[in-house]
């Protein structure tokens, strides 16, 4: 464990802050090159940020992003790349929405309905991730490849199931189709915020709980220790009696279960139905957020809030005449530069440590020390 000296804090912060500054600079250059004024863009985003509604929406978006990041981070801590969070959460959200919207659910008490919905989502997410785990431990198939394939298969399955002959109903007066709306008792109420037309999702607390559990399991339980040990050195973990196969299965199932939660705040807090305009790509955003937050429960929360804020203020850019995709570019540059920055800091640390050791070893002892 590194001690918290000013120097180590500085080294820890320099990478993310440096990446943010670099990404902002790159975005500014792109804006200038395409004939926009970067300050107008910042101005438009800052104006949007003053509206309470934007802030509420940012928090709501960040809730999904955070859950997705935790799902990714569980794998990352043991060098397991769950690229499949995207497919897992969409498939889980669809099936959970189908269950929650079904007519027989109306007779159940509200708490049971919500719990059943969330449980179903976790089970579906875990099952979808479990396929990749199974292929990995029995056949050595890289989870990167299998989850990429499973993502695509999930996309087709979702579009198959989300049609009027199967789980969906068409909405009158629009060409959107989705699962039947969840009725009042199956929803999770939100919190009113002064001056904002949208509510804060009630399931924000679910994200906080998941973040706490993630921290607790990783740093306070034997399982968490073994998970991290496997990630740091597989051979050392095996030598100390960890069954890596079991770890792969359990952590992939956990990751998938958390991935199943990703769609829940939106589903139970605002859309009440899985339809064609349900958010997509949150799984990949989760990877970005986990990287920026270094798999740390607090770091990921900050990164998720930043990402949610950027996403929601980007809406104001189109009216300012700047394509909102500048935010996507900025986010992409942040991810790429932050991983490069972390690597550079790591190399610097190793060199500094070697220098310190070399310094300590290389010093010739004085005559007094020898005789003492």
């Amino acid at each position: 464990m590194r001690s918290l000296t000013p120097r180590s804090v500085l080294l820890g912060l320099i990478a993310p802050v440096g990446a943010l500054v670099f990404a902002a600079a790159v975005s500014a250059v792109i804006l200038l090159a395409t004939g926009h004024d970067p300050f107008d863009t910042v101005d438009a985003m800052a104006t949007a940020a003053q509206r309470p509604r934007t802030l509420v929406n940012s928090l709501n978006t960040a809730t999904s992003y955070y859950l997705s990041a935790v799902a990714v981070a569980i794998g990352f801590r043991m060098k397991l790349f769950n690229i499949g969070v995207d497919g897992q959460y969409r498939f889980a959200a669809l099936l959970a929405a189908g269950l929650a919207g079904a007519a027989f659910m109306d007779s159940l008490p509200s708490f049971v309905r919500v719990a059943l919905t969330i449980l179903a989502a976790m089970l579906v997410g875990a099952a979808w991730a479990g396929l990749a785990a199974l292929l990995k431990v029995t056949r050595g198939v890289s989870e990167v490849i299998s989850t990429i394939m499973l993502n695509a298969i999930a996309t087709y399955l979702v579009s198959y199931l989300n049609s009027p002959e199967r789980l969906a109903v068409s909405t009158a007066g629009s060409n959107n189709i989705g699962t039947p709306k969840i009725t009042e008792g199956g929803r999770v109420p939100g919190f009113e915020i002064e001056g904002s037309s949208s509510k804060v999702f009630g399931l924000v607390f679910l994200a906080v709980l998941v973040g706490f559990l993630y921290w607790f399991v990783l740093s306070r339980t034997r399982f968490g220790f073994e998970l991290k040990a496997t990630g740091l050195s597989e051979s050392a973990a095996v030598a100390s009696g960890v069954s890596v196969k079991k770890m792969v299965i359990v952590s992939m199932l956990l990751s998938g279960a958390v991935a199943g939660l990703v769609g829940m705040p939106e589903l139970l807090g605002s859309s009440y139905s899985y339809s064609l305009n349900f958010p997509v790509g949150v799984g990949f955003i989760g990877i970005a957020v986990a990287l920026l937050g270094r798999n740390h429960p607090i770091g990921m929360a900050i990164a998720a809030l930043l990402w949610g804020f950027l996403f929601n203020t980007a809406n104001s850019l189109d009216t300012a005449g700047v394509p909102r995709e500048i935010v996507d570019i900025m986010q992409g540059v942040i991810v790429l530069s932050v991983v490069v920055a972390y690597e550079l800091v790591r190399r610097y640390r190793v060199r500094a440590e070697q220098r310190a050791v070399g310094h300590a070893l290389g010093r010739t002892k004085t005559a007094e020390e020898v005789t003492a």
Partner: protein
Amino acid sequence: MTGGGLSVGLETAPPKRGRRVSPMVYLIAAVAGLAVVSLVRVLTGANDLTSAGTTQAALTAAVPLAMAALGGLWTERAGVVNIGLEGMMVLGTFGAGYAGYQWGPWAAVVFGLLLGVVGGALHAVATVTFGVDHIISGVAINLLAPGAALFLSKEYFAKAPGGGQKQSPPIEDAQKITIPGLSDWLGTIEGKHWFLLSDLAGLLRGVTTQLSLLTVLAVLLIIGTAWVLWRSPFGLRLRSCGEAPAAAESLGVNVYRYKYIAVIASGAFAGLGGAFLAVSSGQYRDGQTGGRGFIGLAAMIFGNWRPGGLATGATLFGYTDAMALRNSAAVHALLLLLAIALLVVAVMQYRSGHNVLSGVAAAIGVLFGWWFFASDQVPPELVGAAPYVVTLLVLGLASQRLRPPRMGGEPYRRGQGA
């Protein structure tokens, strides 16, 4: 491929060098395969399975996949995993749209290639120079590229005549060649619906009628890649970087430089794939690639990290793509083909002593067969999933026959090799 991750589960696949299969065996296998397809066609009456139109559509669909797969082959052979192919392909479609509507299809191809190179260079800097994890860099590129392409599309196409926020003005198609005389004659034979002969005629007519020059170029690139990577000293060195970089370095190979060349070439191929896609569909559209970069990756894995294999994989996946667009009855016949293929795998696995695998393959095969006989058609929404399902089946049921580059996905630092 370990992807730089855990190596658990890999010990089940002892590397074994199989005997070399002569071209004759491939030919016999191809004819046997065609005979099975023909039989299925005669039995089900799905004449579109091997019609000239299907062949043409399959080729058009296969070319972008093959280019993405070639991109994957180049980097993976040099030991760098590139899941950013999809993003680089998106850049390629934009480049093609930008140059295509102004200066014609060949300018589109060149610009698509150049923008792909930009994506490849980004991946190379991140993975080779800075030693960033290959998967992470790839994911970042997949996040960055579509945003960048859409941003530029809104900047440049919104005001162009015939363009829009999310699409470019139309691009003229590349030249097409038809071998005169042959086409009509083959068409007559095809029309008779004879067993095997008509199928062969349909396939031949498909490749000799209205053949795009882009397809010809793609075939040349695949052959060229095979020659460069397996028959030239340069290729040997490049592949050595994927198998044993430390050993290569000790023999004087500049591993960094070879990795750079490979990753940039990979971006170029992915960009080309995007350009071919945009040119053959007549314009750039947002979201046009639709996961084709990933299908390309799948085709490469299906093809066992080899040029001939990936061409087969791309053709197969392009074929299902074409079927999905054209005719649902013929797609239904594909289920039976899949069932037969799985049963063949089951028999092969049984003979090499893998009883469990054989059982699983047989069970899945029976399931597909049952699906075929119990239904009248495949839901069109599901057909697109075929390449991914097939790849998972290959990985799950026949992975001991796959032989990926040994050090694929491992970050390499000069002087720190094992």
